[in-house]
């Protein structure tokens, strides 16, 4: 690769952006993650299931939902991330990001664990769980179910 010539530059003043994101309406979801559970919402009027969970139904224009727990599903696609963005560079493991179709029909994103990326297969069945990372952030975790043949 040709080396980029160096040009003079000056540093900008630092800007720190950290947000306080309101979770009062989705507290069930965030609290559930701490206990290892992943929830979706279901509109009491039309029955539509929402994941990521939302308390407002845009079809009915109502805000009356029940919380349902997502327990298992099938692996729809996945990738292993070797390049980590700012905020994740302190994690030593190269996490596998996956999308799973839950039995309820909605799809969930999470980390696929307890499996080598080379053994993972689209269509395999997984358990949907959650955990708290040592730095306090939540993570949704998929674990292969025992009936998957290696």
């Amino acid at each position: 690769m040709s080396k980029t010539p160096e040009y003079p530059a000056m540093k900008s003043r630092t800007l720190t952006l950290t947000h306080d994101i309101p979770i009062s309406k989705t507290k069930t979801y965030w609290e559930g993650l701490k206990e290892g559970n992943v929830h979706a919402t279901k509109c009491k009027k039309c029955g539509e299931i929402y994941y990521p969970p939302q308390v407002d139904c845009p079809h009915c224009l109502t805000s009356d939902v029940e919380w349902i727990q997502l327990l298992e599903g099938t692996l729809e696609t996945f990738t292993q991330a070797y390049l980590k963005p700012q905020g994740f560079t302190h994690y030593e493991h190269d996490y596998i990001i996956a999308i799973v179709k839950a039995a309820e029909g909605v799809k969930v994103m999470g980390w696929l664990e307890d499996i080598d990326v080379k053994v993972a297969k689209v269509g395999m069945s997984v358990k949907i769980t959650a955990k708290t990372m040592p730095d306090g952030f939540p993570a949704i975790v998929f674990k292969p179910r025992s009936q998957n043949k290696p």
Partner: protein
Amino acid sequence: MINYRVSGEYMKRVAVIGVGNSKFGVRSDATFPEIAFEAIKEALEDTGITQKDVELSVVGTVGSRLYEMYPAPLINEYTGFTLKGPIRVEAACATGSAAVFTAYNAIASGYVDIAIAIGVEKMCEVDTATSTAVGGRGCYLSEFHMFGTSFACYYALFATAHMAKYGTTEEQLAKIAVKNHYYAARNPKAHFQREVATETILKSRVICWPLKIYDCCPISDGAAAVILASEEKVKEFKAQDPVWLEAIGFGSDTGNLTRREDYTSLRSARIASETAYKMAKIRPEDIEVAMVHDCFTIAEIMAYEDLGFCRKGEGGRLIDEGQTWIGGKIPINIDGGLKAKGHPLAATGCSMIYELTKQLRNEAGDRQVPLKRHIALAHNVGMTGQYCYVTILKR
């Protein structure tokens, strides 16, 4: 699906009368208005008009990696368009096309007769981890916050699904990079000026499996500009035989990737191309040269299929057969594509129009595609298909 009204019954015909493109790359020699100036100067000189003749400027910039949070008025002022705008637009990686769409509609509706669409992006003033984090925050709360997604990850999810369903291979992905590097090496404005061998690509560092570093476009700085005019105005300028903007189709999809129907195709690209084909009254077979959104190699393979250049699942075969090289059935990204020319987000959509205008005027030199019908297509995707614009040009 969705049906946009495409009759164009009440709309004026719009032509591309001038184009400009800065050098793409790590441009630590210049600020974002200075880079915009390069593209705008070339476009004005290409047209033979001045800022005075332009009635409206549309400035597209994603701008999220800049020290300025409201960059458009500064770009507009620096380049001599004060009082002419700007209308600022943002549609992630499709921002350039959103700017062209806005300028096109301003003319087609009769609001103005001459407008400029400018796409500018400065991405290399922050480090790679920061740039990746900003880019990955397309869906912060339900994706990035917990899983550290990046755009490489998003497209890798599509690559895995496409490989599982259609048997697409890492070798086929590598062939896209080989082709686009080959043409970038012949494009003085491209970020990368060198060819790359298949073996080098396959052995290169994995970024997000199955995508390796050579499957990914670089982080680039750059600008491009497109000047559009109504049919009446075209007659007043030296452009005797201009390139016509025949059609521009728009498509969109869910913000959350988890709410997509599948991960092997972009629905927004199918909607946008169907709309554009209908509006231009042509079929995919009529296109003679195309620029498609190859931010990652898998994206080019999906584009072949979504645009109807081959059947679903046969994108890998199209590159295997060499059909998208010059001399093949449909030459694609013969300027190097996003993959090797570079992808300064907002500049990309305007840069596609730049290259196709040069092609349609037979001004593309070594990279000129032999044309008979003179019909070209640009496909510009925002995020992972949250937005898509498909533009058809004709001369």
